[in-house]
């Protein structure tokens, strides 16, 4: 492991000069090294996605001929498809909750657990455990906790006479689900930040301490900026998780009655009975654009800071 701990050796040769010329066999191998991942990715991820983008400009039920309809699907989605705007709002609330509550909490746990502390492994396990539970199981847990008549929360609150319907009431069910989703997201974020914190050079912290910085200053001025690679990764993961969220609400009530999400609308349209494939694809394209807005805005900001 000592080898990997060392920083990359300074380049003494110009960047493009190879140590020794590649043989034809080497070049074929390089083609395969890069070619296999690229072909796999293009055939099974980029290809289908681009095909969906194309389908979003058509009307198709999967059986009859594909009929091009231009931007009609998009127009219909924003102007006369009632579940669309609530779903957008739910997705954004979801993103806000993960970004403002769950992610900072995960960072907080990681910072607490990064120090030498007794039972550290136990806490890590307890907090990470929800991440390895499947979302179907999280759905079961939701029923167990929140059910109106036999749920654990109402039992604990003593509200058996006048029970609260935590997942049936559309004004609160999104928040009930978000608590569970956050419960899971915190563990994921904690794990990634722990990995990032280990990679922060301890001498940075020592230097800050010698210069008289207190613990909070050291963290916000020295450690957190050094974590930027992990921050970017976590931002991307948080955006993706929030906008892709599907399994939990699907397991709870198929994503209806206050739990509409864009991913649910897409699934309903393309694999549901209605089989409006073009229409569903258009919702998916909108979802993709929303994700891109967040990610590209952030990346641009990062690059601008880099240059400044």
């Amino acid at each position, binding site marked *: 492991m000592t080898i990997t701990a060392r920083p990359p050796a300074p380049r003494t040769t110009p960047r493009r000069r190879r140590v*020794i010329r590649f043989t034809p066999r080497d070049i074929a191998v390089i083609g395969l090294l890069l070619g296999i991942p690229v072909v*796999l990715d293009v055939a099974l991820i980029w290809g289908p996605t681009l095909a969906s983008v194309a389908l979003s400009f058509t009307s198709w039920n999967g059986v009859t001929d594909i009929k091009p309809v231009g931007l009609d699907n998009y127009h219909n989605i924003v102007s006369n498809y009632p579940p669309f705007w609530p779903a957008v709002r739910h997705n954004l609330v979801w993103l806000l909750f993960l970004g403002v509550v769950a992610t900072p909490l995960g960072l907080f746990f990681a910072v607490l657990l990064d120090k030498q502390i007794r039972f550290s492994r136990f806490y890590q396990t307890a907090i990470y455990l929800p991440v390895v539970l499947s979302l179907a199981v999280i759905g079961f847990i939701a029923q167990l906790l929140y059910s109106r008549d036999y749920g654990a929360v109402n039992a604990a609150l003593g509200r058996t006479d006048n029970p609260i319907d935590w997942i049936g009431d559309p004004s609160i069910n999104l928040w009930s689900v978000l608590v569970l989703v956050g419960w899971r997201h915190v563990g994921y974020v904690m794990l990634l930040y722990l990995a990032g914190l280990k990679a922060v050079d301890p001498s940075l912290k020592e230097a800050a301490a010698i210069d008289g910085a207190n613990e909070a200053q050291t963290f916000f001025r020295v450690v957190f900026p050094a974590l930027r690679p992990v921050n970017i990764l976590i931002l991307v993961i948080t955006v993706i998780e929030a906008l892709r969220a599907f399994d939990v609400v699907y397991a709870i009530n198929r994503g209806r009655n206050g739990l509409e999400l864009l991913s649910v609308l897409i699934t309903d349209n393309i694999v549901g009975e209605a089989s409006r494939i073009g229409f569903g694809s258009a919702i998916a394209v909108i979802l993709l654009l929303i994700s891109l807005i967040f990610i590209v805005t952030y990346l641009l900001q990062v690059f601008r800071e880099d240059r400044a």
Partner: protein
Amino acid sequence: MIRRLVLGVLGLLWLVPVYLLLVNAFRPSTEYDASRIWVPDGDFGLVDNVRLAWDAAGLGPSILSTLLYSVVSPVAAVVVGAMAGFAIVVLRLRAGFWWFMLLFGGTIFPIQMLLIPLFLGYSSADLYDRRPGMLLVYTAVCVPLAALVMRSFFTGVAYSIYEAARVDGASVWRIFWRVYLPLSLPALGAVVILEFAFVWNDLLFGLTLSQTETVRPVMTALSALSSAYSGSTVPVVLAAGLVMSLPTVLVFLGAQRIFARGLTLGQF
């Protein structure tokens, strides 16, 4: 002191839902009662519950396929991801960053966008409802994360290793297979563990690309069990969920050490 208190309270709070899951999955199938939901039952009902769920949902045939997918695909994906990372970082390919973006960019596409075209492609290529098809799609969706972690890992490996091996006359393939791949085993292990859980828990690809009991992954069977019409009692459904979660939980607990060592996210 405060630190320990905060951690203690939050750590216990985090375990509450898992506690409820355990207590009620161990309860005999007919003993479920809302007023005692917090209290463990004296009788041990887990085995019977699991047996009931196993028969009701037909979990048996699914489980072996799921195991196959969630072991083989992540392993294949990390090797493929390491290939890409090696080519981009160590061989310093021209436009390496863009090749990387091509591979990693796919992670932001909504999975639903893949479903219909994949379904059509799979039907015409005779991959629909077949194990090789499932393996292929899981491998492809696992590659981007593997490429990300391996790229970051190889960036931290001294370039002089590569130079020395070249001077000694090793071919590119030999350097990759005999030097860099063994060197990166901890990182590869960490990614395999993460992706094992991902594939094991997948629902969407299973629902769209498979049909028969022997091919379809276990989560699709499990989600059918929880629907209101399945007629299973709460302890039975919970027991099924618990047993289906065991592989991922055990793999994670057993491999925590690998995890701590292998997943360093220093460079990006």
